[in-house]
């Protein structure tokens, strides 16, 4: 049942909601401002931890009060809010123009001004029309996103406490602006909550722009030339998306001067005639935000930021906003040529970004490309948009958020102890940092191995694509792309579990905050796999059912077998207790050459060498430059195509 009741007198008796939704939007902002004010490190720790705890609990609390099916609406009858938002958008535009002038980034200035001009035009149109009462809303999908933001996002903030302290020690050249940093982190959470709880599109847009702003400032945190350039790259691409978003608002203002189509919940049920054009424009905005090709460069560039920023941007917030909005509009896109092409952009991004990841040795870049790939897959599901695919897409969002944030935080921890982000330098991590290595191992397994989450989603996607129109293309993409993922994850796994005889243990001096975040995320990675039938039946299926009137799940037999596999996987490590007694430990085979225990051997010309082992990167086949060019050209062409088609519909 869809609750389309527009009667402003109808206030359902969920007093908790009226408190909780605005609370979740405003509270992180309050914490953010507080963090801007306190400068003492001890106080900051206290505020961040307390804030994170409260946000986490509040988002968990939502789980218990969200209705079983369908959305729940909460009109916010305060006219001044929309005006304040408009004002804030203008201030932000002015601020960005100032920064643009300061750093001589004229393209950014142009884009900011273009967007601001469109926005002013939109406001003048909207002011003439009648006022719809803006609404907040919550349904299972918003709830899932809120849990991801509230739990994973705040864990990353806690982790950042430990990380940033070390970061400033290691980078004395970077000015200590930790107050601003934590302000931005929490402000980011606040805008994300706003984004997923807003039903009123102009509000969605407002929060959308806030995430763009926060990510821009966070990427440029270190203030080096590279960071500033990459920050502006991200800004430009996201502004391009923002302009498309305003375009959607303008289009809606033209077709329905009354403003009744400005609610997501109404718009997605109002038919292709009116909804398709704004859906495509917003999906374009989503593609820029989710960094699909041809806009993937900003996400890779964003890796210059401190690791918690990467974790926040690329697992639980920023990019998830992009896919969130596309999944929201999946019911409009499904069955259309435009939707199919958007799906193809996602599909090709998945394939090519996965292939590029093979050639990367920088752990953060591997994670970046794998993020881009997975976002591509989510968009492929949402673009084709049948109910089964939307089910798979939401599953992907959940599993990806957890496993990827865990991996980013592991890499950040390792980076600070061994001084490198390079996978080649992670040889023998299992000896050097056993706990972190096991966590990283679980995180990687979570990304591609049965019976962990991401694989379940890919599997569901294969099954769903077979039945979809033109689904065979996507099945092929998944078959090839999926096996490519196996390669780059496995060789990374292999690196960290190599028991290297020369390694010394360095797993000390890791701050407590990092341990908290890492252990909780590891536990969650395993937990969501065990609990996924429950997550599916209580959260994903009701949402899919309420939007499509039909839903899907894995068959009972398969769920049972998966759970059995997971248990088997969890008891296997106990065999080590038995095998640990092994006495006959010998050095590896060195072709009969005399070698020392630390693997030095007499090489040719009488030179003593030490064994070093390096992974394959297969540059010739999977080189970044070549594939990136191909992907950009291909996806850019597809975007032009969808643009032309949409223009045809609009005119």
């Amino acid at each position, binding site marked *: 049942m869809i609750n389309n009741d527009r009667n402003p007198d109808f206030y359902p008796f969920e007093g908790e909601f009226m408190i909780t939704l605005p609370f979740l939007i405003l509270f992180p902002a309050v914490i953010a401002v507080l963090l801007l004010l306190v400068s003492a490190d001890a106080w900051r720790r206290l505020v961040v931890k307390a804030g994170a705890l409260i946000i986490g609990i509040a988002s968990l609390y939502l789980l218990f009060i969200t209705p079983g099916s369908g959305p729940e609406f909460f009109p916010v009858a305060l006219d001044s809010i929309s005006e304040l938002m408009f004002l804030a958008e203008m201030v932000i535009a002015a601020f960005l123009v100032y920064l643009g002038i300061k750093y001589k980034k004229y393209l950014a200035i142009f884009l900011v001004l273009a967007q601001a001009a469109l926005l002013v035009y939109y406001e003048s149109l909207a002011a003439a029309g009648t006022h719809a009462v803006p609404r907040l809303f919550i349904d299972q999908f918003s709830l899932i996103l809120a849990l991801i933001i509230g739990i994973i996002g705040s864990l990353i903030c806690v982790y950042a406490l430990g990380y940033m302290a070390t970061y400033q020690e290691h980078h004395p050249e970077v000015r200590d602006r930790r107050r601003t940093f934590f302000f931005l982190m929490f402000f980011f959470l606040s805008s994300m909550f706003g984004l997923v709880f807003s039903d009123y599109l102009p509000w969605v847009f407002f929060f959308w722009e806030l995430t763009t702003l926060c990510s821009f400032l966070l990427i440029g945190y270190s203030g080096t030339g590279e960071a500033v350039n990459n920050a502006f790259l991200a800004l430009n691409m996201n502004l391009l998306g923002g302009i498309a978003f305003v375009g959607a608002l303008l289009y809606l203002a033209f077709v329905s001067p009354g403003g009744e189509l400005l609610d997501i919940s109404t718009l997605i049920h109002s038919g292709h005639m009116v909804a398709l054009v704004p859906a495509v424009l917003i999906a374009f905005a989503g593609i820029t935000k989710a960094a699909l090709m041809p806009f993937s460069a900003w996400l890779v560039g964003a890796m210059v930021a401190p690791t918690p920023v990467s974790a926040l941007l690329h697992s639980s917030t920023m990019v998830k906003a992009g896919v969130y909005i596309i999944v929201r509009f999946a019911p409009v896109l499904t069955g259309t040529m435009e939707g199919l092409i958007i799906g193809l952009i996602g599909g090709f991004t998945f394939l090519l970004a996965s292939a590029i990841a093979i050639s990367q040795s920088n752990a953060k870049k591997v994670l970046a490309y794998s993020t881009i790939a997975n976002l591509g897959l989510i968009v492929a599901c949402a673009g084709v948009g049948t109910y089964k695919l939307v089910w798979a897409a939401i599953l992907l969002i959940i599993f990806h958020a957890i496993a990827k944030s865990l991996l980013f935080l592991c890499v950040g921890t390792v980076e600070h102890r061994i001084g490198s982000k390079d996978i080649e330098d992670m040889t*023998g991590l*299992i000896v050097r940092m056993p706990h972190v290595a096991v966590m990283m191992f679980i995180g990687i397994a979570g990304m591609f*191995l*049965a*019976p962990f989450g991401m*694989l379940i989603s890919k*599997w569901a996607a*294969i*099954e769903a694509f*077979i039945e979809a129109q033109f689904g*065979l293309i996507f*099945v*092929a993409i*998944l*078959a*090839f792309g*999926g*096996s*490519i993922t*196996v*390669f780059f994850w*496995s*060789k990374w*796994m*292999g*690196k960290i*579990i*190599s*028991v*290297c*005889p020369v390694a010394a243990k360095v797993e000390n001096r890791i701050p407590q905050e990092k341990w908290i975040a890492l252990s909780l995320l590891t536990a969650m990675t395993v937990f969501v796999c065990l609990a996924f039938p429950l997550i599916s039946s209580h959260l994903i299926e009701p949402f899919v059912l309420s939007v499509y009137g039909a839903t899907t799940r894995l*068959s009972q*037999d*398969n769920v049972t*077998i*998966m759970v059995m*596999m997971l248990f*088997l*996987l969890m008891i*296997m*490590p106990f*065999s*080590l207790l038995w*095998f*640990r007694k*092994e006495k*006959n*430990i*010998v*050095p*590896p*085979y*060195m*072709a009969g050459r005399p070698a020392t225990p630390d693997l030095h051997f007499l090489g040719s010309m009488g030179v003593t060498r030490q*064994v070093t*082992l390096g*992974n*394959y990167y297969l540059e*010739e*086949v999977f080189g970044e430059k070549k594939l990136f060019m191909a992907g950009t050209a291909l996806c850019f062409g597809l975007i032009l195509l969808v643009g032309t088609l949409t223009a045809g519909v609009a005119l």
Partner: protein
Amino acid sequence: MILVEYAVIFIILAPFIGGLLAGIDRKLTARMQGRVGPPLLQPFYDVGKLFKKEQIVVTPSQHFYVLSYLVFIVASGALFFAGGDLLLVIFAFTLAHIFLVLGAYSSYSPYSFIGAERELIQIIAYEPMIILAAVGMYMVTKTFFVWEIMASSMPLILYLPGVFLGFLMVLTIKLRKSPFDLSTSHHAHQEIVKGVTTEFSGPMLARVEIAHWYENVFLLGFIYLFFAWNPLVGIIAIIIAYVLEILIDNTFSRATWKFTLKSAWIIAGMMGLVNLGVLYYLSGVVPV
């Protein structure tokens, strides 16, 4: 309907069939090379002897990976013969191989390290085709469950000839037959010693060998699915396919990784995808 009794039968019988198969394989290979060859039961003697040897390891964690490899190979085969979901079987099968690769990585040995890398290349070479094979079976029978595919009495091979040829490529890689025995070989002329299995010895190597037997029986079961509508034809097809693999093994010299990857993907694309595309097109015209 998952049939546990078939899974139990597989777990008990497969090593015997697999070992016997290895014996026949060696005998036939020897005959092709003009040798007499070892007795038929030689593989069993070999494994029996391995179990009697003293265990040496490079690192104790090797045990964990090898045991997991064996357990998950058995599990995926058992799931297949019990009639489970084909895609899940394939994923469990991949998981098992990842354990073998990790076992090779764990020893930090030059030879097994290169073997591990090559084994991964082999995995990505065959995996798309094996998934496309499952998808093809789904397109014909509308199910991924092996027991339903078995019960459908459709002559799958007539719908999926290209997929079948593609699957033979998978079989060549999986049976570790030349030209695709990059990561480890049955023959003693490997430039990377024994590749993946270099650092496994004694009882541990015996487990790897037994896992390989299980794996081979599972793969032949997969071949049988294409001919399941007629058991006799099915068994003949398995025999022909296997003899063909032995012939290929003795005819070609080892390929490079690049050739392996490219040819596997081209065949998956040309044979598998084109076959599925035709099927997809026809399903719109004539109901399958």
